């Protein structure tokens, strides 16, 4: 059952610091971090030397743009300990992710790094209404993956009764949730939805048999529609949390109960948005690639780490009282980006348009071509029962609506073609999204 909206803040001094003062703190911590990186991490030193930058040149956040970027490939190339900035004996924890291909990536944490990460999650849980009176059920996997241990440490830190369920065994999750009276949930949004559906299938009433009031969900991108469904299914407040092993784990940014973007823990990281093609820094409010620089991390500090996630930053004041910048939902990955007639286009933008047009199934394909040196894009949309009609006019109406929405959202004209159900090629049940026929 949803609780009345509260704006409790775990560390008001850090989270509500005036932005001027925060910037000063960030500048000081950035300068110290860059110095340590230059002195202790050969890759960082080589790259700074190549750009002719000395640690002393970096005096404030404004100088960030002169620094080289770090990529996921660097973590693979330097696996496992090449990016450590401290002697190995100071590392007290390794976390990592298997990744879907190739070598795993790992990050080493000093005692202080674990402490910082723990506080980040504690801030997130408090922002979602968590207190020492809560019973927090953690159904993220425990292990190298940061989800389980991250949520566990944060929940313990705020003094909540922590239930380390780990992932899987849905029936048992629900049994414990019911018997213990869990009040908060930490897992992926898709698993939370599955839990909600299963609770109902088991004949339980989320309003009576389950005592959840809120949840902190992350580790995968989700949409506002998913939030609404989840909140209704479990009768809770659903807050988003963002993180990545390379930076800390979950808690790098988190939503308060205003649910208007995730507050970035800016006393520990600096967030930037860049144009993924030109690599130029973009102002707040522009959509682009999210880049993080750690400014307190000791074990494996990250210098301008490219997340490949596309989002916006918003520094306008939040009703909760926190002054930190908020990151919007992840709307795409730079890996999927297409440049069409000079416009950056993400398949996820097209997908959001299709979802918003009533009844359109999310199976679609983008066909990009170049005719007489002009790029063209065709959006092929599979029909399903819901959008079916017996008149040509209805189909043309749907087609025009999709075309107009793409134009207003993405800023390009696309040819929209309706195709029969299940006619688009699929691999592993998913439609192949993009076919680029341009010969560049």
């Amino acid at each position, binding site marked *: 059952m949803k609780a009345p909206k509260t704006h409790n803040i775990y560390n008001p001094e850090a989270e509500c610091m005036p932005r001027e003062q925060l910037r000063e703190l960030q500048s000081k911590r950035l300068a110290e971090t860059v110095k340590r990186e230059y002195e202790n991490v050969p890759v960082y030193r080589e790259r700074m030397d190549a750009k002719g930058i000395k640690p002393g040149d970096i005096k404030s956040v404004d100088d960030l743009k002169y620094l080289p970027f770090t990529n996921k490939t660097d973590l693979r190339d330097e696996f496992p300990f090449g990016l450590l900035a401290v002697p190995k004996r100071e590392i007290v924890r390794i976390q990592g992710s298997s990744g879907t291909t190739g070598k795993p990536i790992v990050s080493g944490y000093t005692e202080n790094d674990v402490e910082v990460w723990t506080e980040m999650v504690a801030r997130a849980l408090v922002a979602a209404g968590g207190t020492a009176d809560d019973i927090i059920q953690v159904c993220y996997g425990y292990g190298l993956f940061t989800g389980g241990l991250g949520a566990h440490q944060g929940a313990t830190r705020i003094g909540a009764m922590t239930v380390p369920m780990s992932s899987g065994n849905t029936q048992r999750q629900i049994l414990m949730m019911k018997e213990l009276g869990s009040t908060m949930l930490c897992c992926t949004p898709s698993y939370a939805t599955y839990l909600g559906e299963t609770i109902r299938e088991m004949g339980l009433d989320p309003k009576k048999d389950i005592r959840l009031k809120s949840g902190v969900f992350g580790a995968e991108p989700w949409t506002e529609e998913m939030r609404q469904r989840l909140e209704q299914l479990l009768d809770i407040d659903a807050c988003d949390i963002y993180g990545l092993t390379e930076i800390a784990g979950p808690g790098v940014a988190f939503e308060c109960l205003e649910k208007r973007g995730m507050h970035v823990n800016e006393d520990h990281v600096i967030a930037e948005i860049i144009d993924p093609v030109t690599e130029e820094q973009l102002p707040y409010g522009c959509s682009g690639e999210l880049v993080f620089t750690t400014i307190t991390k000791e074990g494996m500090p990250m210098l301008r780490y490219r997340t490949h996630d596309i989002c916006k930053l918003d520094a306008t004041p939040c009703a909760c009282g926190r002054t930190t910048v908020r990151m919007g939902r992840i709307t795409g990955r730079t890996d999927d980006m297409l440049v069409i007639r000079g416009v950056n286009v993400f398949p996820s933008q097209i997908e959001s348009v299709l979802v918003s047009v009533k009844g359109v199934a999310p199976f679609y394909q983008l066909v990009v071509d170049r005719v007489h040196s002009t790029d063209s894009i065709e959006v092929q949309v599979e*029909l*399903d*029962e819901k959008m*079916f*009609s*017996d*008149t*040509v*006019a209805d*189909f*043309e109406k749907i087609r025009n609506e999709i075309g107009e929405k793409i134009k207003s959202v993405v800023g390009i004209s696309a040819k929209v*073609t*309706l*195709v*029969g*159900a*299940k*006619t688009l090629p699929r691999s592993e049940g998913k439609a192949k999204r993009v076919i680029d026929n341009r010969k560049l």
Partner: protein
Amino acid sequence: MTIKQISVFMENKPGTMSKVTDALGNSGIDVRAASLADTQDFGILRMIVSDTDKAVKALAEAGYVASVCDVFAAEVPDRPGAMTELMKKVAETGLNLEYMYAFVSPETKDAYIVFRIKDIESAEKALSEKGIKLIGNAK
């Protein structure tokens, strides 16, 4: 009184039509009437068949989305000007005709006009007031 009509979305690709009719023929479904509305990219095949539910199932198995809707079918006497008379009466009701097509019953050799008006309830009333004889699925 209305009859059931099946509509199938068809891409403008060679062989689509024969795939649809094969799917129906192999399930022993008799197509009583058919009409194709087409644009540059796609078409809608509308049919009156002997067994609507079975046809929808057969089409779904063949990978086609079909929808069923209610249309009117009026018997037309076999004499010149009969169709004009019917169309005049429909026009007088002021109702918007989405589309129409005609077929001849193999059993009775009578001609029928199939037409679609979206607001079924008010159309039914207005058409009967005009003395238009509508038939049901039985025929």
